[in-house]
């Protein structure tokens, strides 16, 4: 546990020192603040526009952060050979993976809090109220980012940085297009195609489970137990991916 916390803290300080991460966060905040000034485009539906734009911006920039952080965990340590000195210390490879991931999750959580505060603050300034559903939607995005970071990290245990980034965007796209996959599967004639589509759909994450943007924008009430289900899906999926990443990294030669 000591090693995991130590590695996580180093991961956090390294991430926060990176200009690219700071830039992503700054741009996200700029977009969120800009939304505040463009509500005149949707008269009468300002809060809808703010929520929709805000959650979309947070999802998009959160994805960039998750992919950037995910690919920065293992591959650069091997490319820079910093991992040689690290694994010569009393650190298990599993502890390394968990420490790196824990640090990433902390940075993602911090970023989500910063972006969330800006969004909620904008809404409060505009409307004088804010909805708790918005927080549940933000938590849903956070769980999706947890899965993304784990997936990209897993890919980066055996693939190059570029390949991991491409795979990350691919997983993200498929994860939001699960309903299309299911429709394709229902209309496919070839049994092999059906099996392939069903397998992809079953194995890859379904981010629509964690996406409450439309419900929040339309002002629908979100049952509190949905939060528990989202937590179970997000944490459970990330844990499985992390376990696979740990096994792959354990087999990896350096």
């Amino acid at each position, binding site marked *: 546990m000591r090693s995991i916390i130590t590695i996580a803290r180093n991961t956090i300080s390294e991430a926060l020192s990176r200009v690219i991460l700071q830039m992503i966060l700054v741009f996200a905040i700029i977009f969120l603040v800009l939304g505040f000034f463009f509500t005149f485009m949707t008269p009468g539906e300002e809060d809808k526009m703010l929520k929709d734009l805000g959650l979309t911006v947070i999802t998009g920039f959160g994805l960039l952060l998750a992919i950037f952080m995910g690919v920065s965990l293992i591959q650069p340590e091997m490319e820079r050979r*910093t991992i*040689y*000195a690290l694994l*010569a*210390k009393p650190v298990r490879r599993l502890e390394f993976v968990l420490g790196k991931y824990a640090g990433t999750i902390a940075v993602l959580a911090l970023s989500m809090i910063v972006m969330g505060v800006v969004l909620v603050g904008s809404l409060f300034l505009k409307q004088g109220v804010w909805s708790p559903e918005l927080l549940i939607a933000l938590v849903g995005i956070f769980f999706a980012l947890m899965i993304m970071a784990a997936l990209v990290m897993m890919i980066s245990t055996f693939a190059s940085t570029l390949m991991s980034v491409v795979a990350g965007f691919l997983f993200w796209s498929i994860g939001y297009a699960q309903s299309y996959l299911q429709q394709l599967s229902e209309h496919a004639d070839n049994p092999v195609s059906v099996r392939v589509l069903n397998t992809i759909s079953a194995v890859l994450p379904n981010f629509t489970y964690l996406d409450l943007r439309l419900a929040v924008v339309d002002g629908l009430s979100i049952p509190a137990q949905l939060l528990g289900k989202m937590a179970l899906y997000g944490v459970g999926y990330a844990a499985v991916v992390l376990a696979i990443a740990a096994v792959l990294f354990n087999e990896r030669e350096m």
Partner: protein
Amino acid sequence: MASVVEMHGLTKVYRSFFGGTGVLALNQLDLEIQEGETFGLVGPNGSGKTTCLKLLLGLLYPTAGEAMLFGRKVWDMRVKALLGYMPETPYFYDHLSGEQLLRYFAQLFGLRGAEQRRRIDELLALVGLSERRHMLLRYYSRGMLQRIGLAQALLNDPALLIVDEVTSGLDPVGAHQIRSLILELKRQGKTILLSSHLLNEVQTLCDRVGVLYRGNLKACGTIDELLPQPSQVVITALGLEAPTVARLEELGAACAAADGMVRVTVAPEQAEQAVAVIQGDGGRLHELTRPRPTLEEVFMDMVREEVE
């Protein structure tokens, strides 16, 4: 004396993702290093030195055979707690300062509080970086990185220090400083395994040497065992005339004039007679040596056949 490092039939073949025959990097290596010994693994680039070290550190998995440290498997955490490793090119986290790097690694060894601060202060002083402790590593010179690399390897006061290419890329002053530190650790009784392609460096630092070439251990022993006894005596003399040189050559000596002196190379049994001839003819002895081949010469002899 106990064996600190043991390698039995240690073999490593690098295979590509698609299989195939692969590249044999290390072939059936049998080697033991005793407690308190400074052992040098020498060989040209690509001879298998780094592969051997990586196998000992658990960074690679052997294709066959096994490696043990302190009688345990190399990935045993109790082994890692006794181990210090200085990588060949110490790239560290450039967002950290020298002190922060040492603190980070010290925490991984479980060093905390006053003990941690004392150890970090000691090591920064030992490697001469006390005044640069707050400087970010990205601004460190190559020599400073090498020194902080040595400091992090000593954080846990290791019983076994593994050093890869100890003075690689350092200027003569930096190389001398690192060599002096290694010698000091040797005096303290640490077991040291160092790999180098600089044969003279190994000759200076090590008690025993293993010569690796294309993954095979070509020779292993003390410097005395590896270097043959001198087979010739070299006499340098002044004021020798042609008749004296002719008489020396009759004795079987090879004479060569240079810088106003004559260099006479003769078999040890003829040396006394040659000196008598020189002095009898009024020549002056300048120097008399029995040069021993260097490790480099011995190494080149070993691999010459394969190179040719």
